[in-house]
């Protein structure tokens, strides 16, 4: 456990040390927040009430989705640089390297969400529920981020090249983010596409975060989000740990 924390510390130092890493992961969602708010609020507000309220939970989900990519890139880079080999030659638990990474991702998610909320507040975002659902939303977001980070770890360990890892970002993460209720309400999407949007876990999580922070029916989306989070977490942590153990 101490080993995992030592490695968490390493990744957190990276956030400070690598120019652009912290900036990229913080500024990018804020940029999206600004772009979408300025560009689309006029069109979309007719359907959503105040678009900024709708948008902030969405951009949080978009940020969480990108965690897959961030974690995959980091894990793959350590693998390529021989750093994973060094750790594997040390007498530490096989789980420490991955859990250290994931813990740092959780912390990174938490910090970024707070920053995003602050930026959102400047643009007019306001909570309209109580402390308990808001804390619940925060925890749900981080849990979902952790589950996605495990998926990223598995991808990073399995990918054959840095280019393959990059393609995960452009081929999966970005389209999946748009094919969801992250930026627009599901009902405004054409009927046939709604089917896709509805099975997308990002839709469930975005809807759950909105229900918990803005009000509305919570049970459905929250249960669906928890189910997805648990499913992704269990599946990919098992796959990633198995993959790590079988590294050669």
């Amino acid at each position, binding site marked *: 456990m*101490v*080993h995992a924390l*030592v*490695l968490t510390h*390493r990744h957190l*130092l*990276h956030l400070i*040390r*690598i120019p652009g890493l912290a900036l990229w992961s913080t500024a990018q969602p804020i940029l999206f927040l600004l772009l979408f708010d300025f560009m689309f609020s006029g069109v979309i507000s007719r359907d959503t009430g105040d678009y900024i309220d709708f948008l902030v939970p969405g951009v949080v989900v978009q940020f969480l989705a990108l965690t897959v990519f961030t974690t995959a890139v980091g894990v793959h880079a350590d693998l390529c*640089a*021989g*750093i994973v*080999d*060094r*750790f*594997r*030659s*040390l*007498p*530490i638990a096989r789980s*420490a390297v991955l859990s250290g990474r994931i813990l740092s991702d959780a912390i990174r998610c938490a910090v970024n969400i707070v920053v995003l909320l602050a930026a959102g507040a400047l643009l007019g975002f306001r909570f309209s529920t109580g402390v308990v659902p808001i804390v619940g939303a925060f925890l749900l977001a981080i849990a979902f981020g952790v589950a996605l980070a495990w998926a990223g770890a598995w991808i990073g360990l399995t990918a054959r090249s840095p280019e393959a890892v990059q393609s995960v970002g452009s081929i999966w993460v970005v389209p999946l983010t748009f094919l969801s209720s992250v930026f627009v309400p599901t009902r405004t999407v054409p009927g046939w596409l709604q089917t896709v949007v509805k099975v997308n876990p990002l839709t469930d999580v975005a809807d759950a975060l909105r229900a918990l922070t803005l009000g509305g029916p919570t049970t459905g989306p929250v249960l669906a989000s928890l189910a997805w989070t648990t499913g992704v977490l269990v599946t990919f942590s098992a796959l990633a740990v198995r993959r790590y153990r079988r*590294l*050669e």
Partner: protein
Amino acid sequence: MSIAIQAQALTRSFGDTRALDGIDLEVPSGTVLGLLGPNGSGKTTAVRILATLLPPSSGRASVGGFDVVRQAPQVRTVIGLTGQYAAVDGNLTGVENLELIGRLLDLSRSQARHRAVELIERLDFADAGRRLSKTYSGGMRRRLDLAASLVGRPRVLFLDEPTTGLDPRSRIGMWAIIRELVADGTAVLLTTQYLEEADQLADEIAVLDLGRVIAAGTSDELKRRIGGQVLEVRTVDPVDLDAVAAELAALTGDAPSIDRATRLVKVPAQDTVLVAAVVRRLDEVGIVIADLALRRPSLDDVFLQLIGRRAAMNEPATSAA
């Protein structure tokens, strides 16, 4: 002297490729075994198996008395590994890199710090220890990588091409550090493509080719295997070549070879007393020579002859297939 590394009939296949085809190795504590071989000969595979990063397909090996498969966690407590590329975190300082390893080896925060600073000083980093390691030169990164593998005071050290790509000065610095470690009783398994490096550092050398040990012994033994020394005499006047050859034949009992283009007469020479005898004899008969040298075969000669012989033997088979 205890045996630090022992391997018996170790094999490893990757799909249809047999990277290691049954090797036996033995490295006593306080000695260096040099693994020499061309690219793809199985050197790195051997190191990775012994360092518990890769399971063998068959055979067995022990490091520090622990079985590399069944007791891998114990093996990891006694080894240090420096791979082919410097596995240091460029976004941490030199000291931080070493502290990280120290903490992972269960040193307390202050112990880890202390050990890191100690190694940074010992390996001559001076103030660079506080700089991010991505600002280091290639040689410094390698040294830091070596330092990282020394944090736990390993009894067995694996160095996989530790000086590949380093300038001569950095290489000599690296050698000095390795010698010190060996003097302290560390067993070292060193893979290298530099024959001089093996010559300088290794007590024993195993030449690897196609996953097999094709020759083993001390550097001198290997050199002797390809036939002791060669006496070379260069004449001033080409006319004297045959006379010199006749004198050398009389003195050594061997038939000298004559290279008229370079005015060189060569003959195998078993002992050094011969040189004096040749000089005296040529002086007596009044032949003036330009140059006389007793040349020992270099490890390069050994290597090229061993690997070259295999390549020549395999060629017909390869082209038939």
